[in-house]
């Protein structure tokens, strides 16, 4: 028999704040964390705004171990902040644990490039009229200007490397990077590791920061971002007829997953239970979702099957809801295919309307949102919803949070390249 997996701690570092209750209060109030970009001068960029984390202080977040992490990438620093909140909430600060029973599984992406030195070195080694970099000139400058740790910290395994050091977590340790689905997938696979008995506790979630010139360039070139520069707060409009793209955010979300057995034995407070997980690939195109939401339907269906639940059991869906034309109509269509006649009765919302899109970290903060919805019986709204779209005709909880009994919630994440992941979380009962 597979083990039951519960959540005993959670934490996040987001554009709406740096602790669980502040961010939750602001989500319920429909507030926005989206504003003109300050990390770099983006005033002339097609998109000049983003959802930045403000006021995060690593020293304050980690305390005495600051020196170990000072060179860590921005994403890793956020992950450390979120993980500390989760670890503390789970009551693990003084727990006696076998280090090999505590694992890490993150969906962590970029931590930021040494933009200044990188561009200086490449430009200095680029002769006018050249077609290739002079790697000899470049090498000399790069070796002199670039910092060892800043460079190495860009490896995508560095977030878990820091988490394992910080918490002496020596169990299974993985990072997956499946674009916008990464942290949902990380939490799903971490759940499987505990179910299988390979760890008692998994520190899991996501962390990402792509708000740097080349990150924004990449998404702007793909025309994936909203360009509503005159009105950043209303730029992300999931499911609205006038939606025009997503808003790039950054941050981290971390949950403590634990086998029920282990949590009960140590008398931990159980916040919720992971009921089901489903994963699939569209296998369609690297640029587009399958127009019928083929893979999304499979992920949602597999998650329901894994949870041994039916569509009538789902009280709330936290949508991927990026605010792009394609995603929101495809996701709606996928939900309709699975939920059939009752699709219109299930409240659906996208917190990306307020927090922006945390890319690899998005799924983790959205799962935490589901757990808070269950805890407080409150569903956060889809902000900026004004004009109905005939292709998006479900209940998106427009603009105002809604009180509702939520015992079971579903969170969807879909990534570039056709990666689909769904998690179902439920109120814990013996």
């Amino acid at each position, binding site marked *: 028999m597979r083990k039951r997996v519960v959540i005993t701690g959670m934490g996040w570092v987001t554009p709406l704040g740096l602790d669980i209750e502040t961010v939750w209060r602001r989500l319920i109030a429909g507030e926005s964390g989206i504003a003109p970009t300050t990390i770099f001068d983006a005033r002339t960029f097609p998109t000049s705004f983003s959802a930045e984390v403000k006021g995060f202080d690593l020293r304050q977040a980690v305390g005495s171990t600051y020196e170990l992490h000072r060179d860590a990438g921005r994403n890793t620093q956020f992950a450390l902040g979120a993980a500390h909140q989760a670890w503390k909430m789970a009551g693990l600060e003084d727990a006696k644990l076998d280090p090999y029973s505590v694992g890490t599984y993150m969906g962590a992406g970029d931590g930021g490039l040494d933009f200044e030195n990188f561009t200086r070195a490449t430009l200095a080694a680029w002769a006018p009229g050249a077609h290739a970099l002079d*790697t000899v000139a*470049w090498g000399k400058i*790069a070796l002199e200007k670039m910092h060892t740790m800043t460079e190495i910290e860009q490896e995508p395994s560095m977030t878990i490397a820091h988490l394992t*050091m910080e918490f002496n977590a020596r169990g299974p340790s993985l990072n*997956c990077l499946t674009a916008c689905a990464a942290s949902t997938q990380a939490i799903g696979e971490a759940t499987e590791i505990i179910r299988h008995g390979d760890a008692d506790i998994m520190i899991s979630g996501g962390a990402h920061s792509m708000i740097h010139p080349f990150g924004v360039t*990449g998404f702007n070139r793909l025309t994936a971002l909203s360009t509503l520069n005159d009105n950043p707060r209303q730029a992300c409009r999931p499911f609205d007829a006038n939606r025009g793209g997503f808003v790039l955010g950054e941050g981290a979300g971390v949950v403590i997953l634990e086998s029920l057995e282990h949590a009960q034995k140590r008398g931990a407070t159980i916040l919720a239970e992971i009921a089901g997980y489903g994963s699939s*690939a*569209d296998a369609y195109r690297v*640029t587009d979702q399958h127009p019928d939401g083929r893979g999304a339907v499979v992920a949602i269906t597999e998650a329901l099957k894994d949870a041994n639940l039916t569509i009538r059991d789902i009280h709330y869906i936290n949508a991927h809801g990026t605010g792009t034309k394609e995603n929101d109509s495809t996701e709606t269509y996928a939900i309709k295919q699975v939920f059939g006649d009752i699709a219109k009765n299930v409240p659906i919302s996208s917190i990306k309307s307020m927090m922006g899109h945390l890319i690899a970290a998005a799924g983790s903060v959205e799962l935490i949102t589901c757990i808070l919805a269950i805890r407080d019986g409150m569903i956060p709204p889809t902000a900026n919803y004004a004009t109905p779209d005939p292709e998006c005709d479900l209940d998106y909880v427009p603009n105002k949070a809604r009180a509702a009994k939520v015992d079971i919630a579903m969170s969807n994440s879909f990534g570039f390249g056709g990666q689909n992941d769904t998690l179902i979380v439920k109120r814990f009962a013996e």
Partner: protein
Amino acid sequence: MRRVVITGVGAVSPHGIGTAPFWNGLLEGKSSITALTRFDPSAFESRVAGVVPEFKTTDFVPKSYRKSTKIMAHDIELAVVAADFAVRDARLITKGIADPESPLEAQLLAQGWSKPDPARVGCNIGAGLISANLDELTAAVAEVRNPDNTMNLARWGRSEDPTKPSGMDHLTPLWLLKYLPNMLSCHVSIIHDTQGPSNTITCAQASAGLAIAEAARTIQRNQADLALAGGCESKVHPMGLMRWSLLGRLNGKSNDNPGAACRPYDRDAAGAVLAEGGAVFVLEELEHARKRGATIYAELAGFGSTASASRSPIDPDPSGEAPAMAIKKAFRDAGISPDHVDLICSSGYAVPDWDRSDVNTLRIAFGQTLAKTALLPARAGIGDCGAGSQALDIAAAALAMHQQTIPPAVNCPHPVANLPINQQKKTGSLQHALVISVALGGQNSAIVLRRAT
């Protein structure tokens, strides 16, 4: 419980394109590390590398997919080619091999090939940090160069003359998609129409083992019957060379003798060698494989993973304890003890303090029985392929099990700590092999392979 076996091996390595040149390279005990010529490395101390011979990716994808090869970074190309070899080796008819209902499909079916259900095939390919093509990026950045060689960010975003392109307009619209690590799995899943569970593990040199273990678990849980799993990476890039040079990890003393540059566990080990390559495997549920008469290379018998949690993300665990624990977990999972192991493939970076850590690991995990096994540091003639490294180790072990032959070690005439290096090609009864990979970053992945019976 459902058992998982390897029924297809696709390797792309400095030894050559495909599994046969890889295995022959190992059997010949040769080193394919050469002087680095892809770009001029004279600014760097280490100027040797393990480079995959040139190939045309378009030769390995269906006609309809040729256009998409334009948005593949080299890492992605390696995975696409490795997957093609693996799928053909396993005699599977996917969309990438033959169009549905084509004469080719009929022909292959008549030859005993099988056509899997796409929904029951997963894909899980380990990847690394993919560096952007510096020529492409710098050409665009140079369009907005300031006189002091800084980049004019304002003009990068928008041209002063609205009729002219901005700096960023010089990059192809799909630029970002060339460099996302999940594009290895994504392209492979599209080409071969694998619609089952799909993931991208990014844990440096432990990626492939972790990806294979995770994919195997999905088969054990009955979420799939088959999976394409492995890992590929190219570190042979100016950014890769720059980063590893800064780390002080590379051998800068063997530029005159590239073949001898990578000397794992040898008393003269003097640093790692940058390389590229990897492997993709077809993993398959045992009964599924038997029913269709597939060649079984080996069974994936046990998995173990741990983290070293050292005091710095770039240093090894000097005690070797955490990787040893990964090995013990894999033994437990496979239901074997150390004396059952006939072959060990371990990381062997040829970086002395990492090699010392490996020695401690093997001593803890094997104790007295270590002397009775054979140790093959399979990367000695190849170099370090990052996320592809452990995939090539697993390919070496799986082929050794299948051929009942252990290839000779390269560049280790004077092993440290009396390690049982397999100096001569050896044939005989191989029942179990252990592959252990320790990643920069502290992730450890152990896999036990069992001889197919």
